[in-house]
């Protein structure tokens, strides 16, 4: 250490090391430069922040088809839930309140029921109990669960107008403020 100490203390030798580090560092930064598009992951579909939300088409509880990519240009909240899941029950009123507050400003909520591990009848009763007004697609085959690497219920994906995931919340229940503050940021991106 005494040798290191004498090197560090010497302004000439230590100064040369600092300059050397600066030069090598600058060269390294130059070597590792990439076009902005190379690190933008927005085009790759994957269920995480910064990536494109995996697309899906499902039948809704009302018997209509909904396709995620058709909702481009809106702020979309994808919520994966099941009727038997207590935190899902706890956060549904907050989702409904957020929907009522911001639907006119461009918010869409797509609450995908995990029908493959729930029942359509229970899902329908759940929706009626909570008076949910937003879209309720049914994931009968577990396709969306696989696409979104479902590990815990509820799971929520906030998707911006370009179709890129901006926030992921695994587990719940989310508060109304959590939902509305995130949606509020996404709504500012709308044209």
């Amino acid at each position, binding site marked *: 250490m005494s040798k290191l100490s004498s090197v560090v203390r010497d302004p000439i030798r230590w100064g040369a090391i600092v300059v050397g580090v600066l030069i090598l560092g*600058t060269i390294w930064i130059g070597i*590792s430069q990439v076009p902005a598009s190379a690190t933008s992951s927005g085009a790759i579909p994957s269920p995480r922040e910064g990536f494109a939300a995996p697309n899906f088409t499902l039948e809704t509880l009302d018997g209509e088809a909904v396709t995620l990519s058709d909702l481009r240009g809106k702020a979309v909240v994808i919520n994966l839930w099941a009727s038997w899941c207590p935190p899902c029950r706890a956060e549904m009123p907050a989702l409904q309140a957020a929907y009522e507050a911001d639907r006119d400003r461009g918010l869409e909520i797509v609450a995908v029921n995990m029908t493959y591990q729930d029942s359509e009848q229970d899902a329908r009763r759940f929706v009626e109990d909570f008076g949910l007004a937003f879209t309720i697609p049914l994931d009968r085959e577990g396709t969306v669960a696989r696409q979104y690497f479902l590990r815990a219920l509820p799971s929520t994906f906030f998707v911006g107008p370009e179709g890129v995931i901006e926030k992921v919340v695994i587990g719940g229940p989310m508060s109304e403020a959590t939902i509305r*503050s995130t949606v509020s940021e996404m709504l500012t991106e709308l044209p």
Partner: protein
Amino acid sequence: MLPILQIGPVAIQMPGLILLAGVWVAVSLTDREAPRYSMKASTLSNMILIGLVVGILSSRVWYAIRFLDIYLDNPLSLFSLNPTTLAPLEGSLTGLAAAAYYGYRKGLPLWPTLDVLTPGLAALGLAVGFAHLASGDAFGAETSLPWAIELWGARRHPTQIYEVLTAGFIFWLIWEIRYKTPAPGFLFLTWVALSALSRLVIEAFRGDSIIVLDSLRSAQFSSLVVLTVALIGMHVLVRAHTQQSHETSG
């Protein structure tokens, strides 16, 4: 990658758990090292605790201030356990300021205090690497190298593993030299310099870099600045300490 550990109905967020374990190890190491620097372990533990508590609470408050109307409508949401509704930068700065104020009031000397905290900070750096490994954050750029891993829809550099390996090396080095440094503060600045160097190098393999000026990675710029300042700081500290030692002995 193991972001969630599902035990029955309970979903445990592994990255958070790993970071919590990292904080516990950091505090334990600081407690252990404090007597060597003639400091009271309890004072340092209190300083860390104050920094953490103020940091976390203020992080939520700063976030709520950003969305004041929404939080005024739902004030109880301030107490939500959701970690995504935090303002980490503002919270960290507030927590640091609170810890620094506590340390100042308790008369803790700046550089020796930073030195005693350094092994814990290095351990925390290792925990951050493991947390990234669990969550899949700080992911690598696409590559066809044989050791690439399949992550987020592509074969990528395992940057989380690079991070764990370098953080492990930094921890080992800091641990080895912790009582052999030439001046107070040198250990801390060594850790800062090594961490900045590691980020400067690993950032080149990242797939989530923020790009500035069309093609340059912003984290590399800030790392090079921090590395340079730390190296200059090491020189200034050693010179000042040597001068002081000469004056004392003279």
